[in-house]
């Protein structure tokens, strides 16, 4: 199967902080891949790196981004504008604030159309896409505040697929929705993969949701990928101590009446990253070597993991 996106050894940051380190993964055509991790671990930054919309004070320090076989790392703004919303589009956690409150849904979807076609044709296309994501044609004339959270997210999705992209970046698209609406949105995304042959990078903090939606997943912690591989393998047999903890905290793992477990300690701040493994301060299986050195990625039975538990392979 052909890969559509490939990140090669990406580091993002500035002189003071490194937000992302050695990010490397690929997305296959027509597949969903999940990126899992706590808030502030660099999941959203990874997405923003792909479309090159990083905050002004951050930049790509090293590594390459390949999209459909082309290196887009140093592509100029004008060409990136063609790709953004065209071949790669993005949906967000809170559709209510990511939709402009002063324009109708129809207007906001229509303005994104890249093809130079007549206004009536554009409208027709918007109507078609609205129907496809399960909204009535009436929504075309409505403003964001007149829609429910689920409908707003559907409108966002309609907006993102209007140019038939090949890659959809989904930044926690179901977090602000209630569970039934969230599942409807997930099913819609899964349908899109089949009907449009879209690939999706699905960012979430919920590892069980990741297993449900995608065949492969990536677990991130403090800007590095700690574990990556097939979702079922990772879920049933997590290798990295952090992944183990994440799965251990899931609600379905509790007996009735048991106190909710958390991961001891806090997510490390990017300002004072340790030299060694960033998870070291919270890890229960730490060794002496973990403090001073960052482990290298090693592959164990189709899952790659960065932990000294599985041998002393360190970053040179």
């Amino acid at each position, binding site marked *: 199967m052909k890969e559509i996106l490939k990140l090669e050894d990406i580091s993002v940051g500035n002189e003071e902080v490194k937000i992302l380190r050695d990010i490397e993964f690929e997305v296959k055509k027509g597949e969903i891949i999940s990126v899992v991790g706590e808030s502030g671990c660099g999941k959203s930054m990874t997405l923003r790196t792909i479309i090159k*919309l990083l905050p002004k004070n951050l930049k790509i320090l090293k590594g390459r981004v390949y999209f459909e076989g082309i290196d887009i790392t140093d592509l100029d703004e004008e060409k990136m504008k063609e790709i953004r*919303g065209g071949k790669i589009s993005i949906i967000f956690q809170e559709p209510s*604030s*990511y939709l*402009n*409150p002063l324009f109708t849904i129809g207007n906001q979807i229509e303005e994104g159309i*890249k093809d130079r076609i007549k206004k009536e044709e554009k409208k027709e296309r918007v109507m078609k896409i609205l129907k496809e994501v399960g909204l009535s044609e009436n929504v075309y004339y409505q403003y964001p505040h007149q829609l429910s959270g689920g409908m707003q997210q559907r409108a966002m999705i309609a*907006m993102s697929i209007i140019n038939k992209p090949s890659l959809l970046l989904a930044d926690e698209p179901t977090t602000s929705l209630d569970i039934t609406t969230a599942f409807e949105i997930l099913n819609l995304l899964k349908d899109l993969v089949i009907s449009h042959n879209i690939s999706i990078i699905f960012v979430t903090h919920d590892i069980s949701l990741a297993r449900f939606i995608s065949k492969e997943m990536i677990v991130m912690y403090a800007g590095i990928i700690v574990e990556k591989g097939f979702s079922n393998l990772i879920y049933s047999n997590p290798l990295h101590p952090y992944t183990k903890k994440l799965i251990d905290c899931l609600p379905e793992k509790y007996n009735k009446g048991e106190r909710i477990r958390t991961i001891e300690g806090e997510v490390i701040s990017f300002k004072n990253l340790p030299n060694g493994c960033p998870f070291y301060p919270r890890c229960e299986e730490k060794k002496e070597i973990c403090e001073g050195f960052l482990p290298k990625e090693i592959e164990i039975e189709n899952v790659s993991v960065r932990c000294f538990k599985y041998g002393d392979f360190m970053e040179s």
Partner: protein
Amino acid sequence: MRKFIIRRLIQFIPLLIGMTFISFLIIQLAPGDYFTQLKMNPEISPETIENMKKNFGLDKPVIIQYFYWLRNIFTFNLGESFSYHVPVSYLIKIRLKNTISLSIFSIFLTWIISIPFGIYGAVNDKKFHEKLLSFLAYIGISLPSFFIAMLLIFFISKTAVLPLGGTRSIFYENATYFERFLDYMKHLLTPGLVLTISGIGSLYRLMKNNFLESLNSPYIFTAYAKGLPTWKIYFKHALRNAINPMITIFGYELSGILSGAGLVEIITGWPGMGRLILEGVLSFDLYLVMASLLIGGILLIFGNLFADILLALVDPRIRLR
């Protein structure tokens, strides 16, 4: 929408009555009146003063006086000025025209300058030339308008580029219509510039901050992620959201048309309402003060209504059906 406007217009009537009633009471219950000064004058006999009081209806209780005044208002009679001995409406007519043209001129100039500069400042935030603009804006905000007026008057009197004081030059009588207009505008320029300079700073900062806030909003990120051209992101998505809070401020500015320029009018010698009101208040000229308060109140209410209508047109969230 029409229902909303009609309802608001009906609400105005009790509001205006309440407002004028309280003003009337405050003026009349304050110690001293127009006749206190006349009584000091030994040439005016107490009988004359009593007669004058009767003529103006001031020998009756305050409440009755108010209702007399209110009745006259509904017949468009604003009463007679004590000190000028002419109808108040006659006094106000010319002055009102001058004040309104001054206010509209300065508001127009202020907005037409500060809005684009505000956008420019927000887009170039934290760069050197933006810091320079902000610095200038701070100077504009901190200098009181009367001081700016004095500086400008000093400059003009030294260079004689513009006429000072009044609305007409000597040649006015023999001038053509166009020359008269030009002459009027030249006279208007001094107080107009003072008001503009003192207003630009704060409006620039407001617009800059609004635009900046809107540029940092999530929906702007969406617009970037859609690959929209930059001008469309600025002038469609950011501008519409940034202009929203400005509309409320615009409404307030309209309500200040009458009284906002008072101090500057007095200093630059512009014969507007400001000076008339000040004189009226100082000499307890009851009906003159009441008339200007009434006009001010009406302008305030209409300014707010105008802002509400504009806001409803721009923002679908507060649009009433």
